[in-house]
């Protein structure tokens, strides 16, 4: 494209104590295009966008930002908003307890003098929702909407500010296929109306589907900018530039061996959620054998996470009925502690909400669920703790200057790895992984898959919950399909085709 750039970032360098997150990065975005930004975890993508949007104000980085040819120096997000830039973060920033319309106009209220004009607000919110093709009542509370809809509300919020440049940081990471497709469609629509978009994503298929231009970052540096209209963008090319080497088999091979004894069995499993006031699991029966990876496929909201939680000591207080056997013994776990003692571990899908403690450092997070292992007579052995943390840092390739770094300072994908490390350190017999590779780059995914293979070869069993069908089919020995709180099918991997699984997941 030869249109003049709407945005140019020149020689951007940003350092944190101990980390050079961006090193002389250049980035050009043409007017009216969809520009994808890709790169490994910790490559500096989010940081670059935070520099652009004024989260890191002028003076805390070096280099220049030019918007429509004019040098910009933002003191904060407000300034960049005034200039027509809106950013939607990796972690959504809506307020769950407020309504849709309140959220859309939060900080940008429609007022008559000091008084908010709610009628006008609701009307305008309705218009914005129509723009993003979201059919919800503007008076609904955010917490009652699914993630996909929340994402659209975020975009509606951005659009209400009459923006020129929309930045989305991994917008589809938490979305199911339908919602993702819907979102991509919407972005195309916005492009046609002249809004320029920058999108960060680890889902290369999406990037291929939507990008006009792709910029690859690696180690805080710009590797290259590729033009899709000249045929420069392909999955292979992207991976090669991102990782610096070629990966030809995304799912590492493993022999599907004869599985061992049954490790976990549930029968006639029902769960009632008092908070929602309805039954969320109906008559679920499933089993997992030793040395097996069992995939759990299903749409988001189908009850997969609830199933995992209800098995894992039921921390949310569902009323559970049914039979649970672990290694042949009938059990009923009062709390996660009991489940962990029995050898069950659960890596949550929502790492912020109930996985990691962001203001604590890497080592403290990794050892938290198994402190006894590094303690003698209840005294924590500091050296042992550092040693353990460093082992996981190496084996999971967690990018952090030291294990004493606060987890909130790590990139999204590396936070996910810390979470994984924490549960591996529990050394469970059965590991339940809920969306284990969400927000993780291709290279790191490969590492995690390899690790999973190694673990089952050593005799661990894994339940893998995932919305990414290729991942479930690529890694599992056997697949259960969940739909509306029921198991609608069980397929050995040889018979599990994407069509069959999707059919069962939607019925």
């Amino acid at each position, binding site marked *: 494209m030869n249109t003049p750039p709407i945005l140019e970032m020149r020689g951007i360098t940003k350092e944190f104590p101990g980390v*050079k997150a961006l090193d002389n990065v250049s980035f050009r975005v043409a007017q009216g295009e969809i520009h994808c930004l890709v790169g490994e975890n910790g490559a500096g993508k989010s940081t670059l966008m935070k520099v652009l949007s004024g989260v890191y104000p002028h003076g805390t980085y070096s280099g220049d930002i030019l918007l429509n040819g004019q040098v910009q120096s933002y003191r904060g997000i407000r300034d960049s908003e005034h200039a027509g830039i809106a950013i939607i973060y990796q972690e959504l920033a809506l307020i769950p307890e407020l309504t849709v319309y309140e959220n859309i106009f939060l900080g940008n209220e429609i007022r008559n003098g000091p008084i908010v004009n709610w009628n006008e607000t609701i009307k305008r919110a309705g218009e914005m929702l129509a723009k993003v093709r979201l059919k919800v009542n503007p008076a609904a509370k955010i917490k009652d909407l699914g993630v996909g809809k929340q994402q659209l509300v975020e975009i509606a919020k951005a659009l209400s500010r009459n923006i020129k440049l929309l930045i989305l940081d991994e917008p589809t990471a938490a979305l199911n296929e339908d919602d993702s497709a819907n979102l991509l469609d919407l972005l195309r629509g916005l492009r046609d109306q002249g809004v320029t978009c920058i999108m960060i994503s680890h889902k290369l298929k999406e990037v291929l589907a939507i990008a006009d231009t792709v910029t690859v970052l690696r180690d805080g540096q710009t590797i290259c900018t590729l033009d899709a209209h000249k045929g420069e963008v392909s999955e292979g090319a992207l991976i090669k530039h991102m990782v610096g080497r070629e990966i030809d088999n995304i799912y590492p091979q493993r022999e599907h061996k004869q599985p061992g004894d049954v490790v976990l069995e549930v029968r006639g499993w029902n769960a009632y959620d008092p908070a929602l006031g309805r039954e969320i699991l109906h008559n679920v029966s499933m089993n997992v054998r030793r040395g097996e990876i069992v995939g759990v496929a299903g749409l988001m909201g189908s009850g997969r996470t609830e199933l995992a939680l209800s098995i894992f000591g039921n921390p949310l207080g569902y009323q559970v009925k049914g039979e649970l056997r672990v290694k042949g013994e009938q059990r009923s776990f009062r709390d996660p502690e009991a489940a962990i003692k029995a050898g069950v571990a659960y890596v949550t899908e929502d790492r912020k909400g109930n996985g990691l403690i962001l203001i604590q450092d890497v080592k403290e997070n990794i050892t938290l669920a198994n402190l006894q292992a590094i303690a003698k007579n209840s005294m924590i052995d500091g050296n042992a703790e550092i040693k353990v943390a460093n082992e996981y840092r190496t084996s999971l390739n967690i990018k952090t200057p030291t294990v004493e770094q606060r987890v909130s300072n790590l990139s999204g994908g590396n936070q996910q790895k810390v979470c994984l490390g924490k549960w591996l350190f529990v050394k469970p017999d059965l590991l339940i992984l809920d969306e284990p590779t969400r927000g993780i780059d291709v290279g790191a995914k490969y590492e995690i898959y390899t690790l999973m293979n190694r673990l089952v070869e050593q005799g661990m069993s894994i339940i893998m919950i995932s919305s990414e069908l290729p991942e479930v089919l690529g890694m599992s020995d056997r697949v259960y399909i969940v739909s509306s709180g029921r198991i609608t099918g069980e397929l050995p991997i040889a018979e599990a085709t994407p069509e069959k699984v999707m059919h069962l997941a939607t019925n």
Partner: protein
Amino acid sequence: MARDVATSTSPPRWRLLVARQELVILALLLLVSAGLSLLTGNFFAATNLLNLARNVSWFAVAAFGVGMVILIGGIDLSSGAVMALAGLASALLLQLGLPIWLAVPVGLLSGALVGLCNGVLVGMFNTPPFIVTLGMMGVVRGMTFSLSAGRPVRDLPPAFRALGQDDVWVGPLLVPLPLLTMVGVALLVSLLLRSTVLGRYIYTLGRDERALQVAGVRTERIKVVVYTFSGLLAACGGIIMTSWLGVAAPTAAADYELDIIAAAVIGGTSLFGGEGSVFGVVLGALLMQVVRTGMVLLGFPTYLQVGAIGMMIMLVVLIDNFRRRRLSR
């Protein structure tokens, strides 16, 4: 992947220094003390320092417990009343002729029991700590009045008064016994917080309860333990106070619960939980006491002390906020 560039971008030295609230308070403490010694001439006189140390000791011991409660994101308003109760219980038993080795532990136990009740209500029944401990404050204060029939208990045996009044030789130094007790308790609590599994759980609980629960830790148990500790330590402080004053009054330690919370906050304990240290609490208690003593020496009326402490809290919180903002850059 970001490379290690620790050498080129390691934080400047001043950052490391102000990185800890404790050091800021320490500086403030030295500044105020220096000012006072200039103004009064006798601030650093040995007797004054010894008195200061005694007064700080029992106050700080009680503040360690409350500090722990604040660390887990709770609050304990019953500490002042517990101090009075424990002192009074011991004193009454001594009057009945019980030996000191029995009377003091019973006093401690009474505090621990009150703390246990707080802990069970907060942890097991999920009641807001502010309400629970406010109610408990009333209940316990009421108990002190009915136990003593409203009259102070005097004539405490010398062996008991020694706890708060004696000095002992430590090498060439004559050190007040309560100060030694405080240092001992401080070391123990500090060890507990910094090096034990329970300590790690306490900090973590104040930062993110949910994550701790998912990690398989029963947070309600930790709450019970911490509130019990708070009661126990308040009792310990109360007993030393009683012994130092030589009289157990039902009205003793009135309003101390707020002073104690203030000392913890001044010492860098975050009311949101998850941040603070024993050293900080000691410094906070010291700073409060120094300002008090200084004002007495300078001849200000008592009611101005209250205002001064209030202003100091605001000042310290402001400094803390500023410090955080600079550091998060």
